[in-house]
C-alpha cells in the first residue's frame, strides 16, 4: 500500500487546508513504538498526539525489557495516509523513541485486547450470559448470586461484539486494556 497516493490539483476549502491535496480516505493503523522507559516518555508521546491534533483510539504501554529499560507502546490511530505518515515520522523524531513500526503496512500482524465485563442479573439472564461467554471463550473470574465478571481476550471487534450481546442481558461495567499487537511470522 502506498501512503503517498495523492490527488493532484484537487480544490481546497481553505488556503491552509493541507489535507485535500492528499488522499482523504481515513485509515486505521496500529503502531508499535519502542521507547526508552524514562520518566515523561508517555507524556511526550501523548503530547505529540494532542499537540498536533492526531487521534488515539487506544494506547497501551508496559516495560517489555527490564534490563534494557525499553517499553513498548501500542497505539491504534486513525487518519488519512498522509497523517499516518506524519504520525510515524513525528514519533520517530522523539529522542527517547528507539523504533516505530506501522504494523498495518509492515505486513500481517496479530492484535489482541483483554476486557473485563461485569454482568448482573438473575434467573434466565444468568444462564444466557454463561452460554454467550462460552461461545466467546470468556472466563468467569468472579461470581456472586447476582453478578459475574467475565474475562475475554480477542480482537477489538470480538470484544465489541461480546459487549453488544451482553448489554441487553445486564452488562453494567467494562474495563478494556487497549490493543497489544505483534507482527506475524519470524520477523
Amino acid at each position, binding site marked *: 500500500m502506498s501512503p*503517498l497516493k*495523492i490527488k493532484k*490539483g*484537487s*480544490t*481546497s476549502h*481553505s*488556503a*491552509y*487546508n*493541507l489535507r*485535500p*491535496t*492528499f488522499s482523504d480516505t481515513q485509515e486505521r493503523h496500529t503502531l508499535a513504538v519502542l521507547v*526508552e522507559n524514562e*520518566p*515523561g516518555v508517555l*507524556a*511526550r508521546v501523548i*503530547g505529540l498526539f494532542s*499537540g498536533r491534533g492526531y487521534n488515539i483510539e487506544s494506547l497501551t504501554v508496559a516495560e517489555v525489557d527490564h534490563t534494557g529499560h525499553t517499553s513498548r507502546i501500542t497505539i491504534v490511530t486513525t487518519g488519512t495516509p*498522509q497523517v499516518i*505518515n*506524519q504520525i510515524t*515520522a*513525528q514519533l*520517530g*523524531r*522523539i*529522542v*527517547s523513541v*528507539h523504533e516505530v513500526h506501522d504494523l498495518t503496512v509492515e505486513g500481517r500482524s496479530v492484535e489482541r485486547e483483554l476486557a473485563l465485563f461485569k454482568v448482573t442479573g438473575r434467573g434466565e439472564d444468568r444462564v444466557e450470559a454463561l452460554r454467550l461467554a462460552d461461545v466467546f471463550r470468556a472466563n468467569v473470574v468472579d461470581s456472586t448470586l447476582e453478578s459475574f465478571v467475565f474475562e475475554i481476550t480477542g480482537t477489538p471487534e470480538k470484544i465489541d461484539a461480546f459487549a453488544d450481546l451482553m448489554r441487553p442481558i445486564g452488562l453494567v461495567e467494562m474495563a478494556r486494556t487497549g490493543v497489544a499487537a505483534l507482527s506475524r511470522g519470524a520477523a
Partner: protein
Amino acid sequence: MAQMTGAKMVVQALKDQGVDVVFGYPGGAVLPIYDEIFQQNGIRHILVRHEQGAVHAAEGYARSTGKVGVALVTSGPGATNAVTGLTDALMDSIPIVVFTGQVPTFMIGSDAFQEADTVGITRPCTKHNWLVKETDALAHTIHEAFHVARSGRPGPVLVDIPKDVQFATGAYTTPRQMKSHYQPAVKGAIEGITDLVAAMEKAKKPVFYTGGGVINSGPAASQLLRELVEATGFPITSTLMGLGAYPASGDKWLGMLGMHGLYEANMAMHDCDLMINIGARFDDRITGRIDAFSPKSKKAHIDIDPSSINKVIQTDIPIVGDVGHVLEDILKVWKARGRKTDKEALASWWARIDGWRKVDCLSYTPSEKTIKPQYALERLEALTRDRTDRFICTEVGQHQMWAAQFMGFEEPNHWMTSGGLGTMGYGFPASIGVQLAHPEALVINVAGEASWLMNMQEMGTAVQYRLPVKQFILNNERLGMVRQWQELLHGERYSSSWSEALPDFVKLAEAFGAKGILCTDPADLDDAILEMLTHDGPVIFDCLVEKHENCFPMIPSGKAHNEMLLGAAETQGVIDAKGSVLV
C-alpha cells in the same frame, strides 16, 4: 572517574564541550553552580537582564558560530521566562542548551518556593529535556544534551537540575564516555539522489529553493551549494532563514521568496518544472495557497528530518539526509553522468526570469522630506556592505522584511532573525550573543521601535560588557506590520497598533551610559549612520521613518504566488473573507 559535586560537574562539562560563554541570570536554585562559575576563569558568564534575553543571546551566539549556545537560569520564574526563547529556537532549529535550577528532589511536587514543572512546561518547546535526579547521571546527561542539540535537525534542549543534585558528589563522565542511541542518518539514499540528477538533466525550468537547513548543515554545505549552482547555472532563491548560503551578489540569485519575497523568485517558483528544495520546510509564508502552489513542477526535497517531507507539500523525490552530505553526492553523480543540463531551455528560462526582474518589484516612492524605511536600509547596506565581518540581526515586523529585501548577505551565519515563531524582542539580545562570539565584528540589529522595547532592558547588558552593538531602529511610531494588515484587511481601523508614549531614545541611551543618535532628515542619514559606525560602543539609532509605508511585494493570505501585490495601487479589496482568517 573523578568525583566532584554536581555544580562543579556542570562547569567541567561545559568546558569539555568547548563552551566559552554562558548567558544567564542567578537565583536560589542555581546558586551552587554560580558559586563554581565564580571560582574559575575558563567560562565567561554574561549577566543578562531577563531570562528571555539569555536564551535569545544564546541563539544569536549559536546561529553566528554554528556552535551550541548555552543559557543558565533559576527555577520557577527563571524557567518560565525562558519558554519563549526555547520555542523560538525550536521553530528555527537553533542548537542551544538551557540549564534550569530546580527545587531539591525531596521537595518536588510539594508546591515548594519557586517550583515549576519545568520539564512538563518545556516538553513541547524543546527537542528533548531531562530532569536529572542523581548526581552520578548529571555529566552524562549534559554531554548527551549537547549531542542531541547539535545532531540531526538541531534544536533547543533543557537540563533541569535540582539543588540537592548540585550539592551532592558523584562520578564525572567525559564526553567520550557518552553513549547515545540518538544517531540521525546524514547520508541520503542513492536512489533519490540519482532520480534528482536525472530530473536536473532534463529540467527546462529548474529552481533551487533553499532554506535554513543549508545554514544548519554548516559552511561546507553553503560552499557545495555555490558549486552546484555555478556548475548547473540554475536560478536560486531562498527563504528568510537561508539568506547568505548563496551570495546575494551572485548572478543566479533571485532574492528571497515568499509572502514578502521578490516577484522574480515567486514567479520562478510558480512556473518552474523542477523545484529542488534544499533544507527548507514549505512554510506557509512560502507556499501561499497550497492547491495553487507551483502546480506544474516536479518537487525534490532534501531534509534531515523525515517529518518535514510530505508534511505540507507532496514530494516526488524525497531525500532524507544532511544537506552537505547530499549535495556532495549530487555533485558526484551529476559529474559522473557527464555534467548534463538542457542549456537551450535554461537560456529561455533565464530570459523569462530577466523579464520578471525588470518589474523591479522593490521599487518604492522616494521622498526628500521623510526617511523612507527602504531608503534607510539601502543606505545602511551601502555604508556597511564592504565589511565582511558584518552581522545583521532583526526584530519582527516590516523592518525585518525590508532588511531581508534590501540588505545583501554574502556568507552564511551572518543573518540572525526570528522566522518561525516571529518573536518580537528577539533581535536585541541576539545581537548581544553575536557580539560576544565576534568581539571585533560590526553587529547591527535592524529593529522596529515596538519590538525593540520588548527586550530593551538588555541595554544594561550591552553597556556592562562594552558590547558595541548598533541598534538601528526604524521608528514609524506604529506596530507597522499589524497596521499594514489592518489597512489591507480590517478597513483601516487601526486598533491598538500605535506606539504611544515612546521614550526619547537618545535620552534612553544616555540614561544607560550609551550613545543615542536621532535622525529625521534623509539628507542627514549618511552622516548619522557613519557616526553610529565609528562610535566604539553601543548605540541606539532612532531613525524616524515614514509612518504608513507598506511592505511590498506581498502575497496576500490565501493567494497564489502569481497573484502577488506589487504596490499600493493594487491593494483595494484583494483579500477575501477566506484569506482574512489566515495569519
